[in-house]
């Protein structure tokens, strides 16, 4: 069933993903508006990555439905409109930064001129212009993360999924990543980020807290803190986990 072009950026209804007897995602209902910066927050093993992978059509759901940009996940027309930055850097180490970016540009059907223009802008943003022809194997971990981000963004996606994009990234780079995510939001792109850093979640317009595959709270960071009467998101999460969770809005 199509949700139409004016639908939500992401919508899931009773989404379930099981691995044998283990339930990784348990009856998840998500609604993410277009242009929103949405943080999926939770400890390791809470189902964040599995949710992202189901939404990116990398895993088949066991139950429920998921829609992206008004189309059911699995529809071939969605892939060119979304970007995916996996948890690991997922780059070809034997290729240069330029070769990696060009490859993903070609995969998304971009012309050489389009790739060159987008690559110039992205490399300036991630501050890798002068390393453009360096093999990725010779880059530091932080530089690889920045290259990975550039590869995910080369086709200027409407909806960007980033799985723990700031893990292993130094604080300065994390700050610049978040500035960029906010810029994307202002340009109208929807950004869905998974993180287990509670301090980062403050920068999201809306967060969904996950635990054991379930959404235990959803709302703006301030709303969640206020509704639980806690002093921080971390305390709020612990409180919600103890109670079994609620929705702030």
């Amino acid at each position, binding site marked *: 069933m199509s949700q139409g072009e004016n639908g939500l950026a992401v919508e899931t209804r009773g989404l379930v993903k099981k691995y044998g007897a283990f339930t990784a995602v348990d009856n998840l209902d998500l609604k993410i508006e277009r242009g929103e910066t949405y943080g999926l927050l939770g400890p390791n093993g809470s189902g964040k990555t599995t949710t992202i992978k189901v939404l990116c*059509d990398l895993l088949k759901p066991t139950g429920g439905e998921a829609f992206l940009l008004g189309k059911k996940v699995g529809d071939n027309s969605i892939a060119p409109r979304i970007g995916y930055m*996996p948890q690991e850097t997922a780059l070809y180490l034997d290729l240069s930064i330029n070769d990696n970016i060009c490859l993903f540009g070609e995969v998304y059907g971009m012309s050489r001129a389009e790739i060159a223009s987008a690559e110039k802008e992205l490399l300036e943003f991630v501050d890798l212009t002068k390393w453009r022809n360096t093999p990725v194997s010779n880059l530091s971990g932080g530089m690889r993360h920045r290259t990975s981000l550039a*590869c995910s963004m080369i086709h200027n996606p409407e909806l960007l999924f980033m799985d723990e994009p700031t893990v292993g990234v130094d604080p300065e780079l994390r700050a610049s990543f978040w500035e960029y995510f906010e810029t994307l939001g202002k340009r109208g792109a929807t950004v869905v980020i998974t993180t287990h850093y509670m301090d980062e979640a403050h920068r999201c317009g809306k967060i969904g807290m996950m635990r054991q595959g379930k959404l235990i709270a959803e709302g703006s960071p301030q709303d969640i803190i206020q509704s639980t009467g806690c002093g921080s998101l971390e305390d709020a999460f612990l409180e919600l986990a103890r109670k079994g969770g609620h929705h702030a809005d």
Partner: protein
Amino acid sequence: MRIKRALAITKRIFRGLRHDRRTVALIILAPVLAMTLFGIAFSGEVEDVDVIVVDHDGSDLSNTIIGNLDEQTLNIRFMDSEQEAVKKVEDGNAWAVFVFPEDFSQNIATKNAVIHLRGDKSNVNVASAIATTLREAMTETLTQAGGEMPVSVSESPVYGEDAEFIDFFVPGIMAFAIFLLTTLLTLLAFVGERTSGTLERLKASPMRDGEIVLGYVIAFGVIGMVQAFLLLIIATVGFNITIEGNPFLAYIIVALLALVSVNLGILLSAAAKREAQAVQFLPMIILPTFLLAGIFWPVEAIPSFLRWASFAIPPTYGVEAMRSVMVRGWGLGEIWMELVVLLAFALVFMILSVKSLQRGKG
């Protein structure tokens, strides 16, 4: 299916080789080295075999037979004592003793003349060379004496006139090198795609599973053909082998074999979580190919209860087709069946490898 996206994968494989000299060396040097070493090792005949002659007869006849023994094959020494000569064989200092009894020449008239051969038959190739040389010397002596066999064989080969073992062997080693290296390179490259997360990234893009497979097929098909070109050059220039058939047809066989191998590599990669695990598949690829595909000995020499296994592996058809083109000079009309079987293997493996990519969705 968009060919442009598949070609993006092909380009990425070739771009990667620019920075990976070790893999380039493996692609170029491994088949060249294998061909050269195998070629040199297998092109020679058995030579310089130490034998001892004990001639108790000492007649013209025994001397003529001894004189007709091929001295390139045999290093002949003479001894008087049969016992001491046999001791030399027992001690590993000689391969055989030819004993001409005292009454050897006298018994010729009654057709009871016997040459005693006391040999070490632990090496069948050497033993066979000794027996053949002795038989040829006797035939030669008979001819010189004016005697003639009542029956003669007039040989006019249909195929393979002047063919030596190396002519039989080179097409086999070509098919083997391409099958093994293409499977290995694809297997390692694809396990790398899976473990590094790049495969997942590609699958989240508009790239279809079939396009990824096609990109690999084109890249490794081209690499296989470059390898085949090098091997054909070595075969013709280095080992003086004449390709009786159309070399272009040999290329088609190589391309088909590469197609089979790429898809087998992708298929096997689904069962390996790490590169170290992928390497464990090597004996599974090498041993059946080496032993059952008819590279070193004909499939007909394999026991009949095991022969079905030869026909269950793709290189058997590649080896047979290559040999038919290169030695027999056969064309498409004669080898079409082998090509069809290779194509069928390629299609089945391709379907299974695409399925293996989809299965990852769980």
